[in-house]
């Protein structure tokens, strides 16, 4: 029964993804997809492992910079560039993770924040990142050498492919025996340890996977917008992804996708209102926290179950 519901969700998601660019502006959709993947990767850690990282911008942003750099300066093809950025994020995740998982709760969050701030200052200072100007005009180039990505629709389906790949990967991770252990650790770590599971190595692996997939999102974003900037590594970005996960529903498969859509939509389409944007966003967040405490998708799930 439960599987059936998720399968229907998947079909709707894929179908909507294929049809969407003919109804909605594709560049906006690509942005939404990148952030949706980012939020899903973050949710893997927060929702399924119970670790609140406040430094995910470091993975998202550094992958964006690395991808931008290797494509622009070293002439890498697009797919290799994205791969390089993602691999870098995996590596960075391994380093940060092995330090951060030694502590729990607020201390874990603070360590990730501190490490992410170091990445921010590196990006501000290093010459290769262009300092506060960032990297602009990253060429989109040709996928596999023959698909022209400067065509918006081609680019869109490429991004959709990456998103679906990441999304299914996360779904598989969550529903594997490994994912079950993660949930066990989230619910009660001492009990999971007493059952013979090595909590630390599970947490570390979850952290690395989450970091790497965040990197994939960041790398893709830098190709879509042809730009990598300090916004991507700023702590505000780490905060934004927390909000996306919270608004959509922590610990649900589709929640972060919905949350990312809501927030990106507000950022984009309310930009004409000027200073009212922050006020409108604030009201929406307050409403979410008060009314949908489980997030939009979390509340919907609860409604259906009832």
């Amino acid at each position, binding site marked *: 029964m439960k599987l059936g519901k998720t399968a229907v969700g998947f079909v709707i998601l894929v179908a909507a993804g294929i*049809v969407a660019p*003919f*109804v909605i*502006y594709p*560049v*906006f959709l690509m*942005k939404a997809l990148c952030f949706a993947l980012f939020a899903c990767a973050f949710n893997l850690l927060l929702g399924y492992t119970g670790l609140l990282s406040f430094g995910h911008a470091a993975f998202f942003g550094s992958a964006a910079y690395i991808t931008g750099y290797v494509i622009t300066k070293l002439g890498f093809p697009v797919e290799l560039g994205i791969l390089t950025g993602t691999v870098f994020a995996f590596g960075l995740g391994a380093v940060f993770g092995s330090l951060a998982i030694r502590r729990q709760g607020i201390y874990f969050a603070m360590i990730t924040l501190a490490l992410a701030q170091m990445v921010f200052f590196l990006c*501000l*200072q290093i*010459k290769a990142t*262009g*300092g*506060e*100007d*960032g990297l*602009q*005009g990253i060429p989109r180039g040709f996928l596999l050498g023959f698909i022209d990505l*400067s065509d*918006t629709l081609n680019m869109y389906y490429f991004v959709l492919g990456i998103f679906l790949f990441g999304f299914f990967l996360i779904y598989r991770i969550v529903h594997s025996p490994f994912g079950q252990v993660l949930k066990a650790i989230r619910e009660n770590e001492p009990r999971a340890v007493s059952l013979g599971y090595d909590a630390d190595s599970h947490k570390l692996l979850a952290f690395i996977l989450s970091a790497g997939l965040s990197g994939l999102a960041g790398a893709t*974003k830098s190709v879509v*917008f*042809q*730009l990598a*900037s*300090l*916004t*991507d590594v700023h702590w505000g970005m780490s905060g934004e992804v927390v909000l996306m996960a919270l608004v959509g529903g922590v610990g649900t498969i589709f929640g972060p996708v919905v949350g990312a859509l809501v927030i990106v939509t507000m*950022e*984009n389409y309310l*930009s*004409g*209102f*000027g*200073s*009212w*944007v*922050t006020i409108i966003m604030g009201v929406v967040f307050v409403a979410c926290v008060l009314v949908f405490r489980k997030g939009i998708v979390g509340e919907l799930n609860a409604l259906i179950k009832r």
Partner: protein
Amino acid sequence: MRFSKKILTAAVCAVCIAAPAAWAQTGKISNGVVKIGVMTDLSGLYADLAGPGSVLAAKMAAEDFGGKVLGAPIEVIAGDLQNKPDVASSIARRWLDQENVDMITDLTGSAAALAVVKIVKEKNRIAMVSSGGTTRLTNEDCTDRTVHWAYDTYALANGSARALTQEGAKTWFFITPDYAFGHSMEKDASEAIVAAGGKVLGSVKHPFPGSDFSSFLLQAQASGAQVIGLNNASSDLITTIKQAAEFGVAPKQRLVGMIFMITDIHSIGLKATQGMIYTDAFYWDMNDETRAWSKRFFERQKRMPTMIQAGVYSAVTHYLKAIKASGTDEAGVIMAKMKATPVNDFFAKNGKIREDGRMVHDMYLMQVKNSEESKQPWDYLKLLKVIPGDQAFQPLSKSRCPLIKK
């Protein structure tokens, strides 16, 4: 859905092929409307010096032009880039792809400006940057669809540094924020000082953003330099100036803000800023023309215009004039027309758009009045010296713009 899209694509292609010839002959405007997008910071740090004032300036320019050009209505729309280059980039794409915006102006923040001018070039429209200040716009990242209007960091740093050194302030000390922009400001200013026969005694770099500048100011005082150059901007600069006033820097040493705006003076107050020297591209109380326009601006905005806002008006007007004169809104033709026509309005006299996109015009070395000299609100500045355009801006011979054939 797919079918209608194909028809649309075909139609667009047909128009593209047929249009250039048709436009030149019949004076048609693409999509029947000239749309100007003002992309600025409507809610953040720079909302005072650009923001809603820039939107108003663009609207005033359209109204003063009669609201129509070649029979087509002029429409001004605004977008808040929230000081995020990626937001700027997605707004720009939406404007150019979907909303048929013909020209984007203001462009607050260097990173956002750099991102947008590239998209504008790709889509063959025009960007007229009035707000972003980086010299990269007319150097490494120049395009033949960008005009850089009001000022750039070279003109500000170089203007103050050279003029003061020539006047006899030979020794300098810099307080510089520790990031790329600050470093390049310091480099530009130092070169100008040395070239004018002055000497840089030293400099200190502060972390960005900073909150306490006392130790840096002490070093600056201890250096004994005649001038302390401040390369930081906005809130950092404001804090530094306030602390400098508390430390009594002013009578012995002169304080020079490299990137300073009239709105900064307005928010800090004359007490802390009096005597400060900086370079500006516009001041409302310069002559009858500037006063007349600024008065109209003030009536609607309740603030006096900054050089950025005045620059937006000037840029939009020049753009509309070029459309009228060339009978088309095709970007390449307009750009050639704009470069061929001198800019003459209240903002610039005999301004000229160079090959690299730099609009060259006179800059002004200004000094902040003290409280006795100031007779009315916004009466803040006196003119020390006019810096002729060819001295104020980076010479073409030094340009790193690939469009310049050497």
